[in-house]
């Protein structure tokens, strides 16, 4: 009897091994398991998306929307066609024009639905809708490749998606959690630059220089400092490039230095809140603002310093942590040190706090 069972088990094992190695049964099984796993992950993504859409609708309803469902649908499906890049002439101007049109159109749709609102309120609503749009895109992206992989029984496609999934879920979770901060108006990690600008000039009056961008003037040990930041406390990044350009032109190029302060993505293993110094314009916009800083600095031969504080992508879009606040205090001292050692007495310097100023005035 014992021998019979042993024989059956051995035969079954052999058969299974044979089927796995010499037919596509193994692959099919792998495909089946991976697809089932991806479907459960897609369900998680769907839950996050539905929650973000419901919250966006609620925010719009509270703000007086006539048809929140329609507005959320319109704005989460809104897309931008990138300018032609095989002909690079003028690409920055074309990109800036397209981004400006996008911003104008989104603002118009919101005003049509909500009526006149304060720009800070509109900025916060716009960002909440942008987060929902990002989640909507992630959900559709995963669903597309999952269905395509299933339809064509493409194990490679499914496998790639399965290996990407933990990263996609991490991004989606970060976006989903960021809604809390934007709904309540809590500063986010990316607000490090504006926080440094605030700490440099907490009580100085803010003057609007370009749309949604302000500057203050302070004195640091006999040097005149223009502190530039987006206009808070609504969620906006402003136009720091254009603001710096205007200030430099207003001063006829008589600016000793431009210092940009921004949040930077850390590599795995790096400490959150670590400060790094370099040169160049530390600004993560699609291009139009950064190039303005580079062009005006080159025109008048002004050195551009960059100070960044390291943080993860999740930390950058979620409520600011204590470590980042502490880093901002250290950056303020760092910036003052640079001003004292690299700018002559009586000289002028621009310090730009780059980033989203939600919750920071």
């Amino acid at each position, binding site marked *: 009897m014992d021998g019979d069972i*042993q024989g059956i*088990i*051995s035969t079954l094992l052999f058969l299974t091994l044979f089927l796995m190695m010499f037919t596509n049964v193994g692959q099919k099984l792998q495909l089946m398991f991976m697809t089932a796993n991806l479907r459960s992950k897609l369900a998680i993504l769907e839950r996050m998306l539905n929650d973000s859409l419901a919250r966006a609708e609620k925010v719009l309803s509270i703000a007086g929307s006539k048809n929140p469902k329609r507005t959320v649908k319109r704005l989460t499906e809104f897309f931008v066609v990138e300018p032609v890049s095989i002909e690079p002439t003028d690409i920055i101007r074309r990109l800036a024009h397209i981004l400006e049109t996008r911003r104008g159109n989104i603002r118009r749709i919101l005003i049509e639905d909500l009526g006149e609102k304060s720009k800070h309120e509109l900025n916060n609503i716009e960002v909440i809708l942008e987060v929902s749009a990002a989640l909507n895109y992630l959900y559709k992206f995963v669903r597309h490749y999952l269905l395509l992989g299933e339809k064509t029984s493409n194990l490679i496609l499914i496998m790639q998606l399965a290996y990407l999934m933990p990263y996609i879920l991490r991004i989606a979770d970060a976006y989903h959690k960021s809604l809390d901060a934007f709904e*309540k*108006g*809590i*500063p986010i990690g990316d607000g490090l630059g504006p*926080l440094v600008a*605030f*700490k440099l000039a*907490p*009580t100085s009056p803010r003057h609007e220089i370009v749309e949604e961008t302000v500057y203050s003037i302070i004195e640091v040990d006999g040097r005149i400092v223009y502190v530039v930041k987006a206009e*808070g*406390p609504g969620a906006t990044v402003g136009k720091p490039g254009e603001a710096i350009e205007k200030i430099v032109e207003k001063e006829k190029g008589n600016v000793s230095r431009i210092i940009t302060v921004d949040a930077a993505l850390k590599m795995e293993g790096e400490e959150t809140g670590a400060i790094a110094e370099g040169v160049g314009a530390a600004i993560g916009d699609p291009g139009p603002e950064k190039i303005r800083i580079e062009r005006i600095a080159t025109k008048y031969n002004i050195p551009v310093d960059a100070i960044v504080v390291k943080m993860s992508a999740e930390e950058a879009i*979620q*409520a*600011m*942590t*204590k470590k*980042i*606040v502490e880093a*901002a205090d250290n950056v303020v001292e760092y910036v003052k040190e640079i001003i004292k050692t690299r700018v002559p007495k009586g000289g002028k310097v621009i310090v730009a706090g780059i980033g989203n100023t939600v*919750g*920071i*005035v």
Partner: protein
Amino acid sequence: MNALQILQIAAIIVIVVLLALSIVMAEKKTSKKKEKKTIALIKCDKGDYETKREFKSGDFVGKVEGECPKCKGVLRVYAIFVEEIESHK
């Protein structure tokens, strides 16, 4: 008991141990829950007074919070941040 039987039993034990390990690891990952609190740091403009309180709706960095109890200067929100308190549940 012959060699093949021993091999089969060993294979079963290895599979059971691996399954148990993976379950224990997953449990460990989920057991550490972090409680989050949003804090508003309030300071006097002159720097002689500092206090903390929980974030309230409508708070923002730069918001004037009244008069300093020490020097009658301006009290202002200087930072808003999230603090994590680890709690094992």
